[in-house]
Structure formats: structure tokens, C-alpha cells
């Protein structure tokens, strides 16, 4: 049998938009393409380019253009990290929070999705999935404040502990990094569960059975087959979580208290209290550049796993 008999690729039919035989009227293909892409570009302009462009121009101004002050062009806000070295410490805190939150979401989200995709079936699976996604649909402020009730000294956590052991020391850890991370994990976990779940349900049972038939035990199947095959889900979930968490301000402020100074809260202050929009905008773009830099560094990894 010739080994390469069927490896030849069949000729792909011409699926270019303009080549679709339309009913009688034949428009030039570039026009058809343009017409179909127009709504997308219009939306991109309106939703991303305009606000982003406005912010970008603010970031080069000496003062917020809404006040009475004279506005001039400047680069000084982009020197903020040099002029105000404490911001480096703040950035480090944000990075730690981002990494921990993403890591914990990845671990918890992956195994939750695995349990949903593998251990349950049909209606039960859908119900559980909705329960997992529920934090998404609750008001963020309510969600975060409810955690303060639980983890403050003398909160529900302590009540629970003292119902078991009356002399238990307080377990409350409100106003700490772990508290911030807890709140963020709770809020952003659904992203990871969803992306991992989507990746995991596409894994055919027979692939796992094949591995087992070849002598692989459960853990080997998990590490050599399931995790690599779910990698695209893990990666996209991590990106979806890491980026907003770096800029999050609500959880650090409410759960971190005095410890909760992050890039997110600093930027938010520029807009709401200090009325220094240019600095806030410049810091935002600095973070954006930082995050893009991180992703560019890892894009080799990303590309390799997405070319699965």
C-alpha cells in the first residue's frame, strides 16, 4: 500500500468572498469584502480606538483638559516610575497579586472544569456549570463586601471556627494580600472554568482510554494527555484573568485596606480623587506596555501550544 496515497491535500474550492456566485448581481470582490468588514471596523473605532485615542492624547497633557488650567504637551507622566520610585513597589505588589490570582484560578478552575466535563453528565453538568458561573452575575461590590463579612476578625469564618473550638484564635485575614487574592480569585474564576471546560469537553473519551490501554495510570493520563490538550484553555483563561487583575482596584481597596495599594487603585485615584487624568492615562498605558511585553516574551509558548 503506498503510504502517501491519501496524504495529498485535496484542491480547496475557492471560498474567497467575491467568488461566491451571488444572485445575478456581481460586485467587485474588494467592495463586497469592504462592505462586510465595515460594521466590524466601525465598532472597533467606536468602542476601542476612540476612547483609547482620547486617553492616549490625555496622557501627554500637563493637566486634565476639563479644568481651567492651561494645557500643554509633556512626556513627564511617562517618567512617573522614575520620579516616584514607590510606584515600582506598587507595581511589584500588583504583579504578585496578578500572578497568584492567575495561578490559583488556573489550578482551581482547571480541576473544577475537569470534574464538570468528566465526572458528570447532562442536566447535572449544566446546572453545576451555571452555579460555578454565578459569581459573574452577582454585583461585584456585593461580592467583595460579602467577603469582608466572612474574613474580618470575628466574622463568619471565626464564628465557624469557634463553633468547633471555642478558644480558637481569630482566623480573620481581612486587609492583607491573601484577602485581595481571595476576592479576585472568586471573581475571576469563572473565566478559567469556562475556557478550560470548553477545551476539556472536546477531548474524546477514547483518547483517554487509549492512554490507559497503553499502560498509563490516572496521573499519567492527566499530566501527559489531559493537561497538554487543555493548554489552549488554560492559556486563554490566564490571559483573560491576568490582564484585568493587574488593573483591578475594587478588590484591593475593599479587601486590602491600607495594604491594598496597587497600580489599579493608584490609577483610579488619579481619575476620581486627584483629578490627574493625564497621570492615570499614562500609568494605564505603561501597564498595557508591560503586559504586552510579558505576552510578547511568552508568545513563542503561546504559538506552539495553539498550533496543536
Amino acid at each position: 500500500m503506498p503510504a502517501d496515497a491519501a496524504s495529498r491535500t485535496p484542491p480547496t474550492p475557492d471560498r474567497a468572498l467575491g467568488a461566491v456566485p451571488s444572485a445575478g448581481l456581481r460586485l467587485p470582490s474588494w467592495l463586497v469584502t469592504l462592505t462586510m468588514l465595515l460594521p466590524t471596523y466601525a465598532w472597533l473605532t467606536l468602542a476601542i480606538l476612540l476612547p483609547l485615542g482620547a486617553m492616549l492624547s490625555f496622557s501627554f497633557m500637563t493637566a486634565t483638559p476639563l479644568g481651567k488650567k492651561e494645557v500643554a504637551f509633556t512626556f513627564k507622566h511617562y517618567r512617573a516610575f522614575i520620579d516616584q520610585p514607590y510606584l515600582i513597589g506598587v507595581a511589584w505588589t500588583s504583579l504578585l497579586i496578578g500572578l497568584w490570582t492567575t495561578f490559583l484560578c488556573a489550578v482551581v478552575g482547571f480541576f473544577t472544569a475537569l470534574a464538570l466535563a468528566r465526572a458528570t453528565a447532562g442536566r447535572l453538568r449544566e446546572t453545576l456549570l451555571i452555579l460555578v458561573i454565578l459569581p459573574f452575575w452577582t454585583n461585584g461590590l456585593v461580592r467583595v463586601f460579602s467577603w469582608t463579612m466572612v474574613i474580618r476578625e470575628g466574622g463568619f469564618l471565626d464564628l465557624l471556627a469557634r463553633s468547633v473550638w471555642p478558644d480558637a484564635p481569630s482566623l480573620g485575614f481581612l486587609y492583607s494580600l491573601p484577602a485581595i487574592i481571595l476576592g479576585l480569585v472568586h471573581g475571576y474564576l469563572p473565566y478559567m472554568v469556562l475556557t478550560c471546560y470548553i477545551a476539556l469537553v472536546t477531548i474524546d473519551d477514547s483518547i483517554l482510554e487509549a492512554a490507559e490501554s497503553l499502560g498509563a495510570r490516572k496521573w499519567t493520563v492527566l499530566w501527559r494527555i489531559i493537561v497538554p490538550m487543555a493548554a489552549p484553555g488554560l492559556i486563554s483563561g490566564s490571559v483573560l484573568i491576568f490582564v484585568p487583575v493587574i488593573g483591578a482596584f475594587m478588590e484591593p481597596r475593599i479587601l486590602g485596606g491600607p495594604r491594598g495599594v496597587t497600580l489599579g487603585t493608584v490609577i483610579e485615584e488619579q481619575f476620581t480623587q486627584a483629578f490627574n487624568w493625564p497621570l492615570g492615562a499614562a500609568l494605564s498605558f505603561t501597564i498595557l506596555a508591560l503586559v504586552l511585553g510579558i505576552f510578547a516574551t511568552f508568545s513563542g509558548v503561546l504559538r506552539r501550544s495553539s498550533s496543536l
Partner: protein
Amino acid sequence: MTAVDVTAIAKSYGKVEVLSDITTHFPEGSFTSLLGPSGSGKTTLLRIIAGFVIPDTGRVTIGERDVTRVPVWARNIGMVFQSYALFPHMSVADNVAFGLAQRGVKGEPARREVQRALDMVHLGGFGTRKPKQLSGGQQQRVALARAIVTRPSVLLLDEPLSALDRRLRQEMQVELLRIQRESGLTTIFVTHDQEEALTLSDKVAILDRGRIVQIGAPTEVYERPRTRFAAEFLGDTNFFTGTVADGRVSLRNGMRIATASPLPANGAPVTLAVRPEKITVATRDAAPEDGLTNRVEGAIIASLYSGTALTYEVDAAGQRFKIFAQNRDARPLARGDEVTLSWSPDHTVPIEDAP
């Protein structure tokens, strides 16, 4: 290379009994097909042998070892799935090496074994490709290489060729048979395709609603079906129902049909089966052939031409016959032609179950 035995296996899902009282021996180095219609329990039986399904009762032994409670990964089996089930994130060579790695074979020895297995399926130069870059037939050959490279005690295949088109399937059948002979692996092959089962197997086990209704060599199950189901599932059959009278079977229309097989006592009801290709059809004036002592007269009511062969339908005193004939004569017979049908009592087989 070990014999496999299943003993008194039963399995139910809820109230549905999927397998009942299955006892079979799969001899060392043999190629056995589990043949039956969809839903007859073939896959379930195969998965019980593999260990993916635990039977309600009964035992599975591979060689001397009772594996009924042994997990899949410890059974030393090779399995090939209809959907190929290759690991999409690994190269072809890594796929094949996976089972070796689980057995602690790594590095150069593993590489050599992988190459040998890939050469065996004529994919020697494809080791670095990803499964996605191969055609269906090639993927299934990788799956086969992956399953045999570990020298399993038993090779289990669940409809491995069903996803392939007809031409490729026939090529793969030849390949599979060659590889099975070369490796000498005890092989259990699930299929719903009777031709495939007859072509490949040393033994064919016919399953009907969770029971093995007949097991034997392909010629045996084809030539001497024991039940109406087995006869019909393995191909077309003419059935005659009558009663025993003086060593023959007397039909209601007066026909008397002889069989070389022993018959029950006079007056007992009997159903006989004759394969369509065993019947010779000739014009009335042709000289009778020796040995074909069952002779009836009738007329062609339908004639179907398909190149190498012809299918006739004949009416003889109210009894319908289906006949396959080689396309040998100058002129195929046509509707309305008066003919004589003749066949040997050797090819006339009594069916055991009720008519």
C-alpha cells in the same frame, strides 16, 4: 501471545441485559471476530476484556491470569478504536512511544522499537508528523503500530476500519491480516460487516442480543448456520419450512427437499436453509448436473444484472427463490423464462431454532 478466556460473563445496564452468559475461548495467536448488528453487545464484550467495563458476573482470563478485577493499565492489552484516538499533541513517533514509556522503555531502545513498528505499517518516514497531518487510513495505521509496539497479550480492535472508505478498508484488511500473522498476536476484532469478518478471521462469533449464537470457522458459520439469525446475518438465504416425511422435508406446496444432514422424526416441523449461490439455474432443456438431486421447476420473475454476477428471483409453485449466478451464459435469463433449479442436499442445512 496468550489465550484469552471469558467465562459466564453477564452485564446489564439498569434493566437492560446487554450481555448474558458469554463463555468463549480465544486461542493463542488466533484472529476472532465478534460479529453482530449494532446494539448486540460486541463493544461491551470487548470493553469487558479490555477492562473498561466490569461485568456483573463472570471471569476474564488472559493467559493464566485472572484479570477480572485488574485495572485496564495493568492488563497489557493493545487497543485500536474506530475514531483512531491518537494523541493530537504528540508526534506520530511519540504516540507510538507512549506505551513503551509506560513500561520503562526509553531512549535508543524505544526509538528502535518505534521505528520497527512504524516500518511494519509502512509509515517509517512519518515519525515527526502530527496525527492531524495524516489521512484517516494512515492515522489508523499509527494507532495499530501504537497498539502492537508494546507486544500486548491481546490485541483488541473495535470497528477499526468502519470510518474508512471501501477501497481503503479492503487494503487495510490485507495489512491488518499480514501484521496479525507476523506478530502472532491473539486478536479480537469487533465488526458489523460480515464480509470483513469472514475474510479476516480464524473464528467468527456471531452475537445476537447479547448472546453468542454461533462461533466457528468462517466456512463453518457461513455454510452451516445454526439459527435463522446467523443465516440471515451472514448473507442471503432461502428458507423452506415443512415437515419431515420419509427422510425428506415436505413443503406445503408439495415440494420434497432432501438434505444430507440428519433430520428429526417423521412429522416434525423443520426449516431448511440454502444459500442463493448454491442453486444452479438452467433452462428446462439443459441436462441435469450430477449430485444436484434437489430439483424444482419455476419461472424467472426478476433478473438483476450487476456485471460479474446476476441475481434472479424465481417462483416455483408459490415458493420464492433468490439465486446468485455467475455471468457465464451467452444470454442472461430474463423475466418469464421457464427454468429448472437444482442444488445439492449437502448445501441444504436444517436450522435449529423455531421456524
